[in-house]
């Protein structure tokens, strides 16, 4: 089961793009990339986990708002400003997949993967801190690298380098 062929879930019509658990299969420099809808992310990761992808390696995001050229995406995928990227690793079959999820600027929310992989907790907090993307049902979605009362999300492309002087608001402290 762990060695299931990437195209096994594909429809019989040759014109139909290959899908895996409902997500479009693509490739980037030889690496497997799955394009998932936000709503299906959690079920997709759960299905892949059941298939043998036993470790969640990475969660990150990209803000594509100022990219020089539109990024190459399958025709079915509607590009949005943000993209959340989830990396999964299968220790059994020594295989990796990367899931890319389009997240619109108007509603930057993604379901949290904490239920399936508790190891995503810190990584999702980092994405929230740096991009302001909200992970629904995350147990403790707070800033992790920036101070708790920081305003703004530094890795967004509209957050200029060196724009803001050091911004400490006198956080209450016991000392």
């Amino acid at each position: 089961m762990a060695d299931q062929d990437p195209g096994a879930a594909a429809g019989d019509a040759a014109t139909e793009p290959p899908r895996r658990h409902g997500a479009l299969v693509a490739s980037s420099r030889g690496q497997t990339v799955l394009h998932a809808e936000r709503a299906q992310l959690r079920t997709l990761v759960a299905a892949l986990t059941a298939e043998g992808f036993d470790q969640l390696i990475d969660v990150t995001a990209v803000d594509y708002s100022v990219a020089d050229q539109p990024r190459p995406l399958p025709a079915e995928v509607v590009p949005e400003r943000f993209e959340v990227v989830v990396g999964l690793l299968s220790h059994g079959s020594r295989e990796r997949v990367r899931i890319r999820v389009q997240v619109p600027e108007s509603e930057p929310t993604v379901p949290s993967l904490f239920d399936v992989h508790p190891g995503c907790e810190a990584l999702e907090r980092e994405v929230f801190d740096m991009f302001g993307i909200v992970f629904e049902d995350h147990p403790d979605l707070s800033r992790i690298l920036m101070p708790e009362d920081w305003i703004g999300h530094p890795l967004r492309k509209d957050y200029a380098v060196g724009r803001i002087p050091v911004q400490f608001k006198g956080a209450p402290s016991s000392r």
Partner: protein
Amino acid sequence: MTATNLNETADRVRRRDASPVLRMSETAAANLDGNPADPADDERMIMNMGPAHPSTHGVLRLILELQGETVLRCKPVVGYLHTGMEKTGEQLSFLQGPTNVTRMDYSSPLFNELVFSMAVETLLEIEVPERATWIRMMMCELNRMSSHLLFMATNGMDLGAVGMMIYGWREREEILRFFEKVTGLRMNHNYIRPGGVAADLPDNWQADLTELLDVLPERLDEYDILMSGQPIWRDRLQGVGVLNTAEALALGATGPILRSTGHQWDLRRDEPYLAYDQVDFDVIVGTYGDSYDRYAIRLNEIRESLRIVRQCIETMPKGDYRIQDKKVTPPPRARIDQSMEALIHHFKIFTEGFKVPEGEIYVAVESPRGELGCYLVSDGGAHPYRMHIRGPSFVNLQTVPYLLQGGVIADGVAAVSSVDPIMGEVDR
């Protein structure tokens, strides 16, 4: 591992009857600091440890919920060293990139440079010359040794074996001296660059290295006498900070932490990069997943790295130390005076930088702390559009509450030390 029991694991990690993860804001913790939360139970309180504590390895802060001296829950607070290096990486050209990433995990800088350079090379779809690959591998294994020696030193110091601190630093310094000869710097080398390495190995490097390699095995045997077999050392570490394989996998832990639970996983063997499929080495695994196993794994990994370095000396191929593609690597200095074209290439590379075709890639290497990954996005320009480093220390820190739960504060020092987090990499 079947699906059902994996989900059960995730469930258990999530819902442990008393979850070891303290989810409380820093403000709330500051208000409670030192005061019992419940006046009826004055043994139970929130305590702050760090960020300036000698055993927190830099600036890690732990908010602990204690019952007397027993740790109930814990929250690692990070970010004190955050300098926005991923943001900085977007401003630097691909050639300047290694100068930035090398400062992340400052005790194993070459791995950061390696993973970034490999990501750029994959996007460029170029292959580095064989000699460059072997130089990279040899330097990285030396770096793994120096990083683990630093762990030996700090771990010893944390646990009161102060003599060990001096010995670990002594041996590490000898390796750094060799690095200085090769790269010009003890740390933050900027030696591994897209396209190869910055310079060829110096004359007589074999002799220098052999001399170093001849001393180390007996020094490592001395560590065994000083620590491994010593009853106080064993009592201090065995059974302290225990994690099992399922928990480690669920929490995303990699490197010596995952291997200490008995799970065999080493990217050098399982997803060979560089020339690791051409050298002979063993993957060291533990049995009990405790602090002692993590210590012993690192000590024996130094021995395995020694084996790899010896094989590198024997088989070091001849040839170029960097790719001869003038669009990617600058021409030799002497050529600039003779050739107009070389001057143009030099000028273009150092002003504009080279352009990398559009695409996105994730590359991972086995750093001394676990899986070090680089997610690189290029939009076709001369700067990375997005550069994300998956720091193993950052993810591994999530195991700390699990390691500390139910132990006393003094054991917490041993457990945190055995995770070996490098805060520069955690905070980036």
